[in-house]
């Protein structure tokens, strides 16, 4: 855990830097992919500017090119984005004191990456420590604006370079995201029940991969959370509970 510093915005941006790097190939390839599929440049850019959700944008571009109806694309994107609901609920302690307008803006910038780096500091958030809450809110802005600007710029560069950018899957550049997420999950595995959660998530992810509309992601998430909680309350009850909120 970072000590509270005087430059929370910079702290957030700094901690997000590895994830920004990991997102770069995605932004580039997204721009190039849309180009290659003949989608208008303004459309590609608007997706990154106004939707700002990497996985969903890839799904939309691919499905659109495959001739899927808008309704089906929208449903799939909705299901994929339901995980943001969980992120939002997790982040409630961070934002509940803020005015609605600020919360509305902050909500737009929720991504896997910003959530992942911010969530690591949530346990330090106690009811009365206003200074820490302020620090973490600015930290969130540092992380999210850095991710956002990077995403939009990389999309634009991808569109410009077009088919000079080779296909992502060919070079396997998704690996940057995989190892970055591993770097976030592993330090979070502190209780035995956290390991159970990860194990169930992994197994369920394999078994539900082929489910329609990416429903497997959400299903596996709920299974893993349930397994983690169940094991915490039945198998590992003797262990000291390190969860600072309880």
């Amino acid at each position, binding site marked *: 855990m970072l000590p509270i510093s005087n430059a929370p915005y910079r702290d957030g941006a700094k901690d997000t830097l590895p994830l920004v790097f990991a997102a770069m190939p995605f932004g580039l390839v997204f721009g190039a992919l849309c180009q290659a599929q003949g989608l208008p440049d303004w459309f590609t850019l608007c997706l990154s500017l106004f939707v700002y959700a990497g996985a969903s944008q890839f799904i939309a571009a691919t499905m659109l090119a495959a001739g899927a109806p808008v309704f089906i694309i929208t449903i799939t994107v909705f299901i994929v984005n339901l995980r*943001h*609901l969980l992120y939002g609920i997790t982040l409630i302690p961070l934002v509940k004191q803020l005015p609605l307008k600020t919360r509305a803006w902050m909500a737009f910038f929720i991504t896997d990456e910003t959530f992942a780096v911010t969530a690591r500091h949530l346990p330090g958030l106690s009811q009365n420590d206003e200074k820490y809450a302020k620090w973490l809110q600015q930290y969130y802005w540092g992380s999210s604006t850095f991710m956002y600007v990077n995403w939009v710029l990389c999309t634009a560069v991808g569109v410009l370079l077009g088919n000079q950018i080779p296909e992502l899957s060919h070079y396997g550049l998704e690996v940057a995201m995989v190892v970055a997420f591993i770097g976030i999950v592993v330090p979070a595995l502190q209780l035995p029940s956290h390991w159970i959660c990860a194990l169930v998530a992994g197994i369920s992810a394999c078994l539900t991969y082929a489910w329609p509309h990416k429903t497997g992601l959400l299903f596996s998430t709920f299974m893993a959370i349930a397994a983690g909680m169940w094991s915490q309350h039945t198998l590992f009850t003797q262990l000291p509970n390190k969860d600072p909120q309880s």
Partner: protein
Amino acid sequence: MSIEIILIVAMLAVTYLPRMLPFALASRIRLPMWMQEAMSYVPIAVLTVIIVQTSLFKQDQLQLTLTNPYIWAAFAAFVVARIQAKLFITVLSGLIVFFIAKLML
């Protein structure tokens, strides 16, 4: 209206709604204890699913073999993340092992 504009608006709606809903209600609802506890599992659960589905599936096929360089990269990242906490070192180690594995396999 063109199909592109409809799609952008529809996607904006279904993306922003799940992001906004909890924040909109944040000042009014108090999460029960069990739910606060459940939420502490969210990062591990979601990220693990994304990690596993991205690294083990290629062209929609499960590639659970040692010739899959993602497995080597993931294993290296796991070990390095256990040893030290710096995200950059973990990412770098994973990438290096990935490209070595790709060259050799």
